[in-house]
């Protein structure tokens, strides 16, 4: 046996058999390499596990679906609900007349005759009613009509109704955004964001309601044709409230007229009158040519060519810069701006505040300001007290926030800011100027034209504004129609929020002795808004020390009674500025 095995081992193989085996081994190796590489490639192509899990879900995302919209505290402002719509296939219905009659009895707003005409149109598909209620759905099911069926689709609902209508916006019947944030989600600045994630706005629904409530009260009381209320965080640019009146219910946008849909806060421009004196005073101080202690002659009207500029609250004496501001002197303001560098200085300063260009915000309703093409002396004078230039209330608040925020410009936003430190800030005004203007705003509320904006608990600063309304049809200004406004900042010793209230064509009543100026109509609204919103936002009441610092400065800068006597004597001699 052993010998046989040795014989077999030592036996020389047949050469042809040996070659065939060699070829077989070669072919085997080639196949092994080929299969191995295919196997490696297959393993390489395997997606990661999470992608495998997510893939079917992503495929299920509906392009019509819209993200829920929340306020800054997570309160729901808009969401999609699955709602049934009823349709019919007339070819499957034997009794068209009876079907139309029965459906009209259970579906609100559906009449038998028009429905019957649609069913007899000869098509195989006819809408019966869009977006029915669950009760109507049940009633149609109970009828058990052949050829009548439901189609389910997303339907946008706004549970807070009109509360934030101009901010949130609205959609059409196909769930496409047509206004406000809804439009921005489809075609605007928010179109690229993940549509499955809820969108958190900067709005605070509690503040929004307080502003809306106070604005509606003022609209009713003063019979105004429109109004705008804005609350803005001056440090981050977040808009906590933006109310435009009259408003509309976005659930029934088809019932809203064009006046209701108009966004008066960002989509309309107005001449805001004396509110602009905040900027004119800042221009003067920022130029370095005027000191806060300087005085100007406001004893008689200012004549420029054939134009005469007068004061509404004429003091008929020399006024210091703070007095010009607190008594809202047109004459003094115009003279200050002339001395500070005139039209060029004014134009440059307003440009730095962003008042000469279209503002920025997430919603599409943004109007461009109307600014003078030339700046002759008379235009410079009228612009200094807010006539001859029209900006949106939102632009005004943004500029005012700059003058309350150490002179750094912050862009307004309707989206919640999670990291305030990351907000871009562009310094445009010297902090010393801001400090002076802030103090003068406090003075205006403490004893000037804005005294009705005072709030128990907070030190408030602000400025009144009353401007004749432009007559766009006939040109010039309308008689007996004004834009009354008040812009406030609180707490003035360490500003956190800017508040603007504007009333379009208010009328005075017994309580205001017939006056309709901003100090009588808009300032009390700002006072009420601050009194309600301040505690909700956790703003601590102003301290006694803060008030004492303001008072001490008044004693230092403002002339005493003795000074006023001396001032009269100086004015009589024609000396001084």
């Amino acid at each position: 046996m052993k010998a046989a095995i040795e014989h077999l081992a030592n036996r020389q193989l047949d050469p042809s058999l040996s070659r065939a085996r060699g070829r077989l081994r070669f072919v085997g190796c080639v196949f092994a390499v080929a299969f191995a590489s295919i196997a490696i490639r297959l393993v390489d192509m395997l997606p990661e596990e999470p992608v495998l899990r997510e893939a079917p879900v992503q495929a299920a995302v509906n392009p019509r679906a819209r993200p829920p919209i929340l306020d800054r505290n997570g309160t729901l402002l808009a969401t999609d609900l699955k709602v049934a719509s009823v349709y019919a296939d007339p070819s499957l219905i034997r009794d068209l007349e009876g079907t139309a009659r029965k459906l009209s009895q259970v579906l609100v707003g559906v009449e038998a005759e028009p429905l019957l005409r649609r069913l007899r149109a000869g098509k195989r598909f006819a809408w019966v009613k869009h977006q029915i209620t669950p009760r109507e759905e049940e009633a149609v099911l109970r009828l058990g009509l052949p050829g009548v069926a439901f189609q389910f689709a997303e339907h946008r609902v706004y549970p807070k109704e009109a509360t934030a209508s101009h901010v949130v916006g609205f959609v059409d019947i196909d769930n496409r955004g047509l206004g406000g944030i809804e439009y921005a989600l489809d075609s605007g600045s928010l179109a690229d964001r993940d549509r499955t994630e809820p969108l958190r706005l900067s709005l605070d629904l509690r503040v929004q309601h307080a502003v809306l409530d106070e604005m509606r009260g003022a609209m009713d009381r003063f019979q105004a044709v429109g109004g705008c209320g804005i609350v803005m965080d001056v440090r981050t640019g977040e808009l906590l409230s933006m109310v435009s009146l009259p408003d509309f219910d976005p659930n029934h946008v088809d019932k809203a007229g064009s006046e209701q849909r108009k966004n008066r806060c960002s989509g309309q421009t107005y001449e805001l009158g004396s509110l602009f004196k905040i900027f004119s005073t800042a221009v003067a101080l920022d130029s370095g040519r005027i000191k806060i202690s300087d005085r100007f002659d406001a004893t008689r009207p200012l004549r420029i060519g054939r134009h005469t500029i007068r004061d509404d609250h004429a003091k008929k004496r020399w006024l210091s810069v703070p007095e010009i501001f607190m008594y809202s002197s047109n004459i003094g303001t115009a003279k200050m701006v002339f001395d500070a560098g005139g039209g060029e200085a004014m134009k440059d300063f307003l440009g730095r505040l962003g008042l000469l260009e279209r503002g920025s915000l997430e919603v599409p309703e943004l109007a461009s300001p109307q600014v003078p093409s030339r700046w002759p002396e008379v235009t410079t004078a009228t612009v200094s007290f807010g006539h001859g230039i029209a900006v949106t209330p939102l632009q005004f608040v943004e500029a005012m926030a700059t003058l309350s925020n150490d002179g750094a410009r912050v862009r307004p936003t309707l989206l919640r800011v999670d990291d305030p430190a990351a907000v871009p800030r562009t310094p445009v005004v010297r902090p010393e100027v801001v400090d002076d203007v802030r103090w003068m705003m406090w003075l205006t509320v403490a004893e000037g034209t804005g005294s009705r904006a005072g709030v128990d608990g907070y030190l408030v600063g602000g400025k009144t504004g009353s401007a004749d309304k432009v007559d766009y049809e006939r040109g010039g200004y309308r008689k007996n129609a004004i834009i009354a406004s008040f812009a406030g900042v609180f707490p003035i010793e360490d500003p956190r929020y800017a508040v603007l209230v504007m009333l379009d064509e208010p009328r005075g009543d017994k309580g205001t002795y017939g006056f309709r100026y901003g100090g009588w109509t808009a300032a009390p609204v700002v006072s009420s808004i601050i009194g309600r919103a301040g505690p909700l936002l956790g703003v601590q009441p102003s301290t006694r020390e803060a008030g004492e610092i303001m008072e001490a400065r008044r004693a230092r800068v403002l002339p005493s009674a003795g000074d006023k006597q001396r001032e009269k004597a100086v004015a009589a001699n024609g000396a001084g500025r």
Partner: protein
Amino acid sequence: MSARYSIAALALAVAAAGTVYQLKYWVREREGSLWRLRGAVQEEVWRIRTLEADLAFLTRPERLALQAPQLGMVPVTPKALARLEDIPRVDEIPVAGIGGVTPVNAVPVPRPARR
């Protein structure tokens, strides 16, 4: 030897085919189950959304304001806010009748029982 290998390989192939067949049906069944679950989850999501919308509608500020008198709610005012450091410590509270700031070991005293 070769025949044994061939039979073993054939048996292995048949077993593998059977396993793949079973696996395929099992996966199909799991997939069906997954889609049913996904549909059920989606339905729940819609229900939750409806409830959230309902809650948001019922808690509209104007509705709560109407109910405030019944619920004994009043608007918060600036005077209702205070810093923790503004609240006096127990041993700093002046005691009536003794005069001045007198340190006391204040302990809650039970309200006298009604007769």
